[in-house]
């Protein structure tokens, strides 16, 4: 049962991954990637990471929803399929990725993997929480600082107007013009 589930999820994940670069529609490409992530999330649940599997699905579907907006914003396509080939060095890229796959799988099959040490906790989610709030508090704190820095940096890069445009130099006046962020 687990095997059937695993293999079908794997096929879905890889086929959806290939679909991303084959289809002629931005929206289809984006949501094919989302399907690939959902399949990997489900596989993570199969290998015991219930919480992280669910979080993967949560985060990646959200990201792909946002990704689709960017796709349309930059490329402005309609839902009908449009011929779309925006690639360079296609043959080289295929050669490199096939070589990498062969190398990786050779490694996977050749390395004598050690046998399992220890048994998983009854509730891996609780254990993860205790670990993050205990021994690995530093990781948690590091990640949160990086996240805040990302929010700030992302806004700085992407915004073309800030609160000075909206509220004037003294940050008090309210511009009435929608172009300047007023009219609200």
């Amino acid at each position, binding site marked *: 049962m687990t095997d059937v589930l695993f293999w079908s999820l794997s096929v879905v994940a890889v086929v959806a991954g290939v679909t991303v670069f084959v289809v002629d529609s931005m929206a289809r490409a984006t949501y094919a*990637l989302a399907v690939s992530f959902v399949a990997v999330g489900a596989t993570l649940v199969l290998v*015991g990471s219930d919480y992280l599997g669910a979080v993967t699905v949560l985060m990646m579907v959200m990201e792909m929803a946002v*990704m689709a907006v960017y796709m349309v914003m930059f490329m402005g396509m309609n839902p009908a399929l449009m011929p779309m080939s*925006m690639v360079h060095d296609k043959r080289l890229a295929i050669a490199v*990725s096939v070589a990498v796959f062969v190398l990786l799988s050779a490694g996977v099959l050749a390395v004598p993997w050690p046998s399992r040490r220890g048994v998983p906790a009854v509730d891996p989610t609780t254990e993860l929480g205790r*670990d993050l709030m205990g021994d690995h508090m530093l990781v948690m704190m590091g990640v949160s600082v990086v996240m805040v820095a990302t*929010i700030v940096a*992302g806004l700085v890069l992407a915004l073309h107007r800030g609160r000075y445009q909206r509220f004037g130099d003294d940050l008090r006046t309210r511009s009435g013009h929608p172009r300047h962020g007023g009219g609200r």
Partner: protein
Amino acid sequence: MTLQTVLLVAAALFSVGLYGALSQQVLVMIMMGLELMINGLLLAAGAFWWFLNPTPTGQVLLLVILAAMTVEMAMGFAVATLVHRHRRSDMTDDATELAG
């Protein structure tokens, strides 16, 4: 389902993502390639954790990979917006110089 099979699937995902990241010209499509590569890493890390050493510490690594993914996306979108605003383009070939 053994460690090897899961790792093979992860390797396939990684290679497909690598193809995308290398061959695509559109910035957002390149990001999708990168995402797919990290997707493979995530699966591999999950497999290592479960089949080799299922202690809580291993899951922390998965969490860090997930965090790396979000950071990559957020910064990617920000840069894409910036490039698009300055050059009216989202193709990497039009952004070979850093000078505005």
